[in-house]
């Protein structure tokens, strides 16, 4: 014990001493030199290309399935780019960082990627809070940033809407922002009414940035269809673990459908509370944990009949001619024994994959990836690029629209938003299977109502 102490003490001492003496000498002159040295010190320089490797920094909560799926999908995109000769003749390298879903951690890794690794492109960010936490820094540094996870419209309207010039290097290629998602969701509500005669809707939303549109504009959008009414609304604190009161309230209000917008860990509890108590309404909306291909196991099958909206439709429906090749490539590489979940890319995977390939195409058109000197050319090229991705068609809104640099929605002939599909868990022998139930052109099965209703 005492011996150990002495050892640590000695090594600490010598360590500190060495640094101490060296820097002590330097310190005297340092003050005078501060200004002159500022340009050429250590590794703390300013970023920017300068090498012949095209580096992509991917940001996501890679401890979560969503982030892991996205990271792997980015790897597939990079492999594809390499096979096709790189980007603008440069070799391609992927640097993936875990944001831990926290703004402060994201800030740290982003500054490392941009300031130290000199990435040429940033892709990712799942949590809206994370996106907003790093956006000012990224705007400052001009490095192109493609948002592929978070859908909060304020990210665009509060930044690009106010000062386009400052934020022009930041675009979103998926999913459509949640204002548009809300509109898509209202279309889906009418569809449910056509199908099953559901009239009363309840909206339960996480108390978080990304649900803002569903709390604020979705009720009015639903009630635009005169057959429908919103009979109950509430928001749930993120640490809620007892959902009985919320579901009781919805049942008391005679809701036929509860649309819940939930991204945190309680989603599985929410689902099993609903299913085991056989609450008399259908469970629709968006459940981020519910998008996991492994959700059936995580909920012991209680997720049967619940739906969630997700871009990419869980990889079960052929949205474009690129969908299935991508999903198959993913499954070949990452699904099977000993592989961690998710066994499908999940929505952020689709978007990260598409985002990287989209940028590569835009860069070819711009003829450059040097954002330090040719940012305008790159941004123009991105705004003019039309690209068919695995999750759908990608083209961006221009500077003068409501959502500059944001993904355009696609609409079918009735004007209904069609690139925000809905999937439902169906029974498949002893297990469960994800089916796409909306919109009709992509559906693989018809929406079913829980048997207890």
């Amino acid at each position, binding site marked *: 014990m005492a011996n150990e102490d002495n050892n640590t003490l000695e090594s600490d001492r010598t360590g500190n001493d060495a640094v101490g003496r060296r820097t002590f000498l330097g310190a005297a002159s340092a003050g005078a030199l501060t200004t002159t040295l500022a340009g050429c010190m250590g590794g703390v320089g300013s970023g920017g290309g300068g090498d012949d490797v095209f580096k992509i920094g991917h940001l996501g909560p890679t401890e979560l399935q969503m982030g892991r799926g996205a990271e792997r999908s980015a790897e597939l995109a990079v492999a594809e780019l390499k096979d096709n000769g790189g980007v603008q003749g440069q070799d391609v390298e992927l640097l993936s960082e875990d944001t831990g879903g926290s703004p402060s951690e994201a800030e740290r890794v982003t500054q490392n990627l941009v300031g130290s690794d000199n990435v040429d492109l940033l892709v990712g960010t799942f949590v809206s809070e994370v996106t907003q936490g790093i956006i000012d820094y990224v705007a400052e540094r001009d490095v192109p940033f493609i948002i592929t996870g978070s859908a909060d419209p304020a990210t665009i309207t509060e930044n690009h809407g106010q000062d386009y010039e400052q934020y022009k290097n930041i675009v979103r290629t998926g999913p459509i922002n949640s204002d548009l998602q809300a509109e898509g969701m209202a279309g889906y509500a009418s569809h449910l009414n056509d199908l099953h005669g559901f009239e009363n809707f309840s909206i339960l939303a996480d108390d978080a940035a990304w649900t803002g549109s569903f709390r604020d504009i979705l009720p009015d959008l639903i009630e635009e269809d005169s057959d429908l009414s919103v009979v109950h609304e509430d928001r749930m604190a993120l640490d809620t673990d007892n959902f009985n009161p919320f579901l009781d309230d919805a049942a008391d209000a005679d809701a036929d459908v509860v649309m819940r917008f939930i991204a945190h860990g309680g989603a*599985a509890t929410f689902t099993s509370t609903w299913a085991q*108590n056989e609450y008399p309404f259908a469970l629709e909306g968006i459940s981020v944990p519910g998008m996991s291909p492994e959700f059936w196991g*995580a909920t012991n099958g209680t997720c049967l009949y619940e739906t969630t909206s997700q871009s990419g439709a869980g990889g079960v429906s052929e949205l474009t001619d690129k969908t299935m090749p991508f999903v198959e490539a993913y499954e070949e590489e990452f699904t099977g024994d000993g592989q961690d979940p998710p066994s499908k890319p999940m929505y952020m995977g689709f978007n990260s994959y598409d985002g990287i390939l989209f940028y590569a195409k835009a860069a070819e058109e711009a003829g450059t990836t040097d954002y330090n000197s040719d940012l305008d050319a790159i941004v123009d090229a991105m705004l003019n690029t039309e690209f068919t991705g695995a999750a759908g068609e990608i083209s961006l809104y221009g500077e003068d629209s409501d959502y500059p640099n944001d993904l355009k929605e696609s609409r079918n002939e009735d004007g209904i938003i069609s690139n925000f599909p809905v999937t439902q868990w169906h029974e498949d022998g002893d297990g469960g299977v994800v089916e796409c139930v909306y919109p009709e052109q992509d559906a693989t099965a018809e929406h079913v109502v829980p048997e207890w209703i």
Partner: protein
Amino acid sequence: MISAVYALIAIGFTMIFGVGGVLNLAHGALIMIGAFTYLAATSAAIPPFAGFLLAVVVTAAASYALYAGLVKYIEDNIVITFLATVVVALLLTELVIIQFGSAPSQLLPVISGTIYLEAVGTRIRYVQLLAFVVSWIAIGALWYYVTKTDEGRSILATSMSTRGAELTGVDLQKVKSRTWLIAGAFAGIAGVFIGTLQSTSPQMWLSPLALAFIIVVIGGIGSIKGSVIAAYLIGYLETASVEILGPSFQGVLSLVVLVAILLLKPNGLFGRELVHE
């Protein structure tokens, strides 16, 4: 209903404090161990009931290991002890993430099914009833044990006065070990039910721990009776705040009551003066 489970948690927490003066902030982590043991057991196709027993045993063992392997050596310094135990909790969180991932999972209920109470307008799952019954059996058994058996009485005696108990020939080490085992078993029971009724995730230790804190402070540190009563008070307050203020205000009311009680009766409803020995 779930108040009985809260009471179990609080009793374990308060007993450990009573006999050793240790604030075991890893108590929530023990609950987590219970839930994850059950999860691991049931996903390995062990029947739920056996899995439940296994979870209780493993948690009790973990609790004892925590005492014998760590707390025993540092319990003389209360600050170090509660820092060390909270660090243990945080460490376990990370280990659980590494082993099970950070996404929450749902436990297979020990029994499934549900009944609808027309009069109250809510639904109750059988597993909720089971949680209630099992918790009360456990509390009853403990009550019998500490008041009617010599072994148990020595625990009670120690928590009243360590020195007095020692003078009357109580083996302090044994008493402490037993207490940690009991507290661990209770945490294991609570873990399975909390994990089933709420969520089983690497963060699940914090809110039961906070609840145990609140209950124990209101009931008085070291008092078993106080814990049960306070647990029901808190349970009632939670329901009441949902009724009065709406579901998003769960928990705020109980915190307010807590502060009020602390200010009026700093030792809790049934607490005793904290003696420096």
